[in-house]
């Protein structure tokens, strides 16, 4: 079922790393400079089959012929046997479900909550971390972490975030590295990072660990996915060996740091040597690396650096907008100095 996916694309214009998250990519990091031969691109090769595409077009045409920009955003029916994903229904919610109207908005809530989480991630501008929701499900995000210094310096670790489908009321999201990094908190077999220890009570009162980071907006009462990502980065800078998932690593770190270091170096090398592998997940939005190809990447880079986000259709009627003659710090209208005659 692909129609639903295209819907999401339109909802989520920021989803592609190549343009949408320009801030993240170019703002705080010098990814390009540090790794001039790497480029990240999203694997957009796989598209819908033609038949599906067509049915989508028809759908679109029938519905609103004059609105091509918003794409195919038909919400198709969920199969009856699909797991209901809405919040565990309170009695009231069930009642609404029964009469059919209200509950149908439920999916929007979850989807928008995840979009809001993603928006928060972008706003946080996490250093060295890039994520991108998958093409197939908003509950799965692909990510990559660049480690700039410390024991894991030069490590580039791809990972996947799995968000429980009863989000935000469920447990905390899981972070699984594509290749199990040699690390006390990373399961040597599955590659899963022990996130739960940092978020013992997901979605509850703010967690001490991130209280000080909790500066910006709306973040006081709940945990957020960006905090998980931040945590996934922190573990590589501050090694914690308590209750390890990889006892060997923990023991080595405590007893024989040199050996630990060399194992880490090996692990980093191993990870980096698989960097150009096909993405583990067959998903158009999975993060894949390729060597620098000027024909493709120069232009993309150019666009990244010159991109200025504008509203989708800002041209019409917006020549005059955003008027303000309020002097900063004042609350009086027309307090700004009369604009001196410009030439």
């Amino acid at each position, binding site marked *: 079922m692909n129609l639903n996916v295209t819907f999401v694309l339109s909802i989520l214009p920021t989803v592609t790393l190549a343009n949408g998250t320009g801030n993240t990519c170019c703002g705080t990091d010098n990814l390009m400079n540090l790794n001039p031969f790497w480029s990240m691109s999203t694997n957009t090769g796989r598209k819908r089959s033609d038949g599906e595409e067509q049915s989508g077009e028809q759908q679109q045409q029938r519905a609103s012929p004059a609105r091509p920009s918003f794409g195919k955003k038909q919400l198709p029916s969920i199969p009856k046997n*699909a797991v209901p994903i809405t919040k565990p229904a309170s009695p009231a919610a069930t009642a609404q479900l029964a009469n059919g109207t209200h509950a149908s908005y439920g999916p929007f809530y979850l989807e928008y909550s995840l979009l809001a989480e993603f928006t928060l991630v972008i706003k946080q501008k996490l250093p060295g971390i890039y994520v991108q929701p998958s093409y197939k499900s908003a509950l799965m995000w692909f990510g990559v972490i660049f480690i700039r210094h410390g024991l894991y310096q030069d490590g580039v670790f791809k990972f996947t975030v799995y968000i429980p489908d009863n989000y935000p009321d469920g447990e905390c999201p899981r972070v699984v590295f594509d290749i199990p990094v040699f690390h006390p908190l990373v399961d040597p077999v599955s590659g899963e990072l022990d996130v739960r220890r940092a978020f013992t009570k997901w979605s509850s009162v703010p967690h001490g660990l991130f209280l000080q980071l909790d500066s910006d907006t709306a973040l006081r009462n709940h945990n957020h996915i960006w905090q998980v990502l931040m945590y996934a980065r922190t573990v590589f800078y501050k090694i914690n060996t308590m209750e390890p998932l990889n006892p060997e690593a923990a023991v080595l770190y405590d007893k024989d740091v040199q050996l630990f270091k060399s194992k880490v170096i090996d692990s980093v090398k191993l990870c980096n040597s698989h960097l150009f592998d096909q993405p583990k997940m067959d998903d158009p939005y999975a993060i894949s690396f390729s060597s620098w190809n000027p024909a493709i990447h120069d232009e993309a880079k150019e666009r990244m650096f010159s991109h200025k986000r504008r509203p989708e259709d800002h041209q019409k009627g917006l020549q005059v907008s955003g008027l303000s003659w309020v*002097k900063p710090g004042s609350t009086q209208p027309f307090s700004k100095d009369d604009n001196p005659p410009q030439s």
Partner: protein
Amino acid sequence: MEWMSWLSRLTPRGPGGRSSRNVASSSPCTADPETCLMVFENHWRQLSWVLEQQEPSGCSDDLTAVRNHTDQMLCLLAEERPGEVGEGPPGTLTSSTVPPVGPILGLVVTENVLERVVQWHLRRGLDPDSQGALLKLFEMLIGQSQQPLLQHKAVLQPLLGLLGACAEPQLGCPPSLENSLVLLLNQICVSMARAPAVLELLFRSAPVQHGPTNLLIFSLLVPFIHRDGAIGQQARDALLLVMATSASNQGVARYIAENSYFCPVLATGLSALYSSLPRKIEVRGDDWHALRREDWMGVSSLVLFMNSLEFCNAVIQVAHPLVRSQLVDYVHNGFLVPVMGPALHKSSVDEMIASTAYLDLFLRSVTETALLKTFLRFILMHRHDNDTILDTLLTRVSSNSRLCMVSLSLFRTLLSLNCEDLMLQLVLRYLLPCTHVMLSQRRAVRDTDLYGKSADKFLSLIPECCRLSVLPSAEREEEPAFWGKVLNSPSSESPVHPKPSTPSRLALFMRQQSTALPFTPSPTETVPSSPRGGPSTPLSPDSPMHPVPEGLDWESGYLEYLRDARRGVELCSWACRNWSAPYDGEDPSPNTAPLLPPPPTSNPSLAMFPEHFSFQQGGGEAMLSTQSEAVERLISELLDGAGPGEGGQQGPGEGGQQGPGDSNGQGISIEAFTQELRELEERVRERSRGVGDPDSEEPLPPSPLDSDLIGNGAGAGVEPKVVGSAVGLCSPARPLGQPSAQPYTGPFMVVLFAKLENMLQNSLYVNILLTGILCQLACYPQPLLRSFLLNTNMVFQPSVKSLIQVLGSVKNRIEVFAASHEDFPAMLRKAQRYLVARGKVDWADSSPMGVPTLRRSDSLVKSRKPSLGDLIMRHTNSPTRARHAAQLALAHVRDGGQSLHSALFRGGTGGGASGLEKQVEALRVKNAVYCAVIFSEFLKELAALAQEHAVSMPFLQSHDTEELSSVLNF
């Protein structure tokens, strides 16, 4: 209005057009240059002989000879191509930069031919005939010449001599020659625009005697600024070229600002033109609320005004800053304050409606920031009788329907500007102190609806009774799949719902969509069983798509709302990215909030309207007041206005715009309708009185029926708290002594909420405008405003009414109403279908609807007023179909059962009441049912906005030049 369009308008008169005329005139000298030169010299020999006659004989032979020779010679001159390189004779002013002149021009320069010709004429005494001939000759010469001429003093001086003569008081320019003069000036300006150096020459080399008015072309053009027709247009084009050319010339700019009457003439001309605009806008169609282009194109006085306003706008766009700022000042002090201000405060309802609609039109037409600033400064800062214009406009929102609609429309325009100063004055300054929220909640001001809680709350307010359409098919209503589904769940080929064809609520009304949908002639009634009801779905009935329950169409437009909301939020936050502060409850600090102005204690303009509703805020419940005296006054006013002997009310400046018997033909206007409604009530009352207590009562007691029908139209028992009792009218602004003592969210919010609370009684169109404005406000990303409107978890101070409270109260009223009307579901469905059809009706290009002619009104109009053309709003021939629909909506009250619309509600009002009672009841029911439809859609809109705010990304401030360039737009 754009500069480009001005330029492009000029091109037809540019070189292209000229040369074609050239060819047509097939001049005698397509011969080689040498022959031409010889011919020219020959003419010149003979001509100079005549010119050298010591005493001009005054004999017509001389004149004829001079004219003939001059004609020939100037033709030759115009035809001549520039000389080869190195050929140029001396005597040119800028010989180094200009290509060498041809031999004929060389001769003209060395012999000073033109100067001698002109001087000869002037010495002789210029008769209009010769003056005209010279003007035409020069116009031809400048327009057609193959080489630049105006750089040569030998051409420029005689030209200025001729123009100087035209400017002289004793000679002047006779009206018959004005066309030639303006055309010549226009040509000069076109050449000047091509070679800006000419401007400096024109400016410097003026004859000394002209002194300060040394930019002759300019002072000659100014009187034509406001002229009608082609001549005015040419003059404005020419002036605009001067403006553009002089944009970087300080000297010329100073001259224009200090020594010419350009700016005052332009600005005060607006005043003069405004005074000749119709004082009364007559509309058929109860949805009319703003002047659209098609509305004013047929009104010559308004076209004239708009031409001049657009010219002002264009001048401000291209002129030197000195000129720009002077013009802006003159527009403020010479037009807005002395003319627009009083016009907005006129005491008659018609004039208020007209002036408000004009102001709205002007605001929508102006594109230049500097000019907009002047308008906004006028609206926000100028005090007329102690009240700002904004105060006055705010009071109008609570007035009767038409004035309310026009005022709402103006506010919609204002809000669309995304102007910080405006929003500060209108809303934000009242929210800045944060006193409206509980102290503990202040931090939550910045929260967004991360988990859809607010959206859920809004949607939960959709009344049960409005969800009926899905009920019968609840089990068929499958839950839509969505992106967030579990990965492994089988993605299936389950049938998809057709995309809801619901036009979003706005589209129902605004009709600006270019969407061209195929429109089938019978919108609703003939295919009641069609699953999708809407004609927009090309699906054949036997389509494989499984049938969608009727009404789903309407129900499931939520995605559309999300999309609209996304666009709205994005555009708004983009537009606000350069504001001075985020307004997030911390910046600006609540402590620096400005001292709020004392609200008006009494409101003169409000007291005018008997049927407006005013609300006391503190009580929490709306207090409805009607005033029987005022009712009478209104009725008499309406009767006066409608009576055949009207005119007593019209101002002296009415001019010729308003023919006799104008207002008789007003067709269906809200005002007339209100009056009619009152008459109906009167008769109902009379009748009932006749039964019980025959003719003993005084004519017009303050009747409970009044408030019941008009104020509380929802019918008996709906909201007993709403009483038509209070005699005193109170303004929507609540007195406030100290800003911090009692939290107050400002008159705008108060009046909007009051109006919203009254939704059940509002007309459909008021409700559409009203909810549209609230949605516009809800698009603003400033946390203070966003949290006030959209955060349903916010706890406000007890005295502050929240949007969710108001909505809750409306919900209850709708549900009570629905419970008391057993056929509510059917009516609701009909209303939905009608609105869907209405939303589509405007972009259907055939005229399929067998419009039942509005017999009475239409024929009345036609019979009484044959010369409809010039009068505003007389769309006898070009009513949009939407207007038809609107008329239909109203027509059922009159025609009882004839129209489509009345068919919708036929049988809805049972009971054995009289026909009149039935009709009155029908109106109340109609408003309430439409309200139920709009209300549900409004809630979806708000929910969608709450969700979109949570996922919108902020835009970076822009201080770069790209903005500038897009504004300058050369």
